[in-house]
């Protein structure tokens, strides 16, 4: 698989390590009433779709940026690559 890095261009997926579903960006509020339930769901439950999947890849052997890659889990085709930073900011997750 080739990941088209937004800053560096096409890179071999071997340079990256995989974390999982990009919903891991949406860390629950630790002060919420139901925080224990929310953290359980956050840490352990997954949509695990067959089809489009937004997921976190880390460019460990490269510029060490985190990416959100949209990939089809049935065909392995990658259709979108974004900097995780930008995604997190757009969701108000990061300064």
């Amino acid at each position: 698989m080739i990941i088209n890095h937004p800053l560096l261009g096409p890179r071999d997926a071997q340079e990256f390590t995989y974390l999982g579903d990009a919903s891991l960006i949406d860390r629950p509020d630790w002060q919420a009433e139901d925080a224990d339930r929310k953290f359980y769901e956050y840490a352990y439950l997954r949509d695990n779709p067959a089809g489009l999947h937004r997921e976190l890849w880390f460019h460990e052997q490269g510029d060490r940026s985190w990416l959100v890659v949209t990939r089809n889990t049935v065909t392995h085709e990658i259709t979108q690559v974004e900097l995780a930073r930008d995604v997190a900011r757009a969701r108000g997750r990061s300064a």
Partner: protein
Amino acid sequence: MRYSGFKVIKEALTGHKGWTPAWRDPDPQPSYDVVIIGGGGHGLATAYYLAKQFGGKRIAVLEKGWIGGGNVGRNTTIIRSNYLLDGNEPFYEFSLKLWEGLEQDLNYNAMISQRGILNLIHTDAQRDAFTRRGNAMILNGADAELLSVDQIRARYPFMNFDDARFPIKGGLAQHRGGTVRHDAVAWGYARGADSLGVDIIQNCEVTGFRIENGVCKGVETSRGFIGAGKVGCAVAGSSGRLMAKADMRLPIESHVLQAFVSEGLKPILPGVVTFGAGHFYCSQSDKGGLVFGGDLDGYNSYAQRGNLPVVEDVAEGGMALFPMLGRVRLLRMWGGIMDMSMDGSPIIDRTHIGGLYFNGGWCYGGFKATPASGWCFAHLLAKDEPHPVAAAYRFDRFEKGRMIDEKGMGAQPNLH
């Protein structure tokens, strides 16, 4: 029909005209007491034990393709019970004992071969960990032996003992471990279940659940609605996809694992060898092919095929351990979809929906579990309470903090 040596000779002399199909091909009934989804090893074993041990009646197994086309026919056929943790080891030892009597029980040759499995040790820390694991196995009634380098050399003289990075310093052996012909397991259980009246319905995909007031009344399928008193899901790598139809999110990710087989060679590898540090394990099939594999590809996938980096990684691991492999040609490679759970251990449990039961999260180790998984899932379906050796395989263990994490990796499925 009973199979026997006598029957084989008789048929050989009479033109093989007396063999009958090993199982029927029935149309689905409007409803059953128990519907099991998934005609892999676990689904078929569940149906067999439900009918045989727990007096189940009116049982159907629904398979979207053909039985044995999933992971039960794609794995590298290794059986063992060399686990550390209390939640796991009694279950896998129960399974190994069932394997030991399986062919007689099923009257089916599954080519069960207890040729032994050897986990290699390269460091002092690993020896400590393996000693502990061996002791845990023995405490649970399994067999384990810590082998010295000389003992290993006597059986596997061709291995690279002096690799600079991972020199072989010993190994943990389980002599009762080994290999089984995987297709025969699916066929043997199918034949056994069918002869007890179970309907095995192939080309029948479950497309939804009919749930009324929190109770599952049956399943929608590509062959129409089928009513059910109880529904048991055992679809391995498709678990996430199937349970989403009941609006459930699981502590499971689907990942692809590849396997490889070489051209046929003379007998060279007497047992199963695992080289965990180098991401490589290998055995030799009775046809002579070296059957080997390594790690997961490591990303979510439903594709049943992997990518080249893992092929390279496995080949490197193989060459590091068995330098003689260099000129062996690869015959085939393939992938299967693993139901990787968040702690690396399985789930056999009720769901929050009445009448709906789940069996999954087998990761890359569910083949060896087939008999016990079937038995324990049948126990749960019949009695509505877990079998004692599977009592820890609950959904709520993640919420309660009772993970069964053999490797201590945490909630990272691609690392288990």
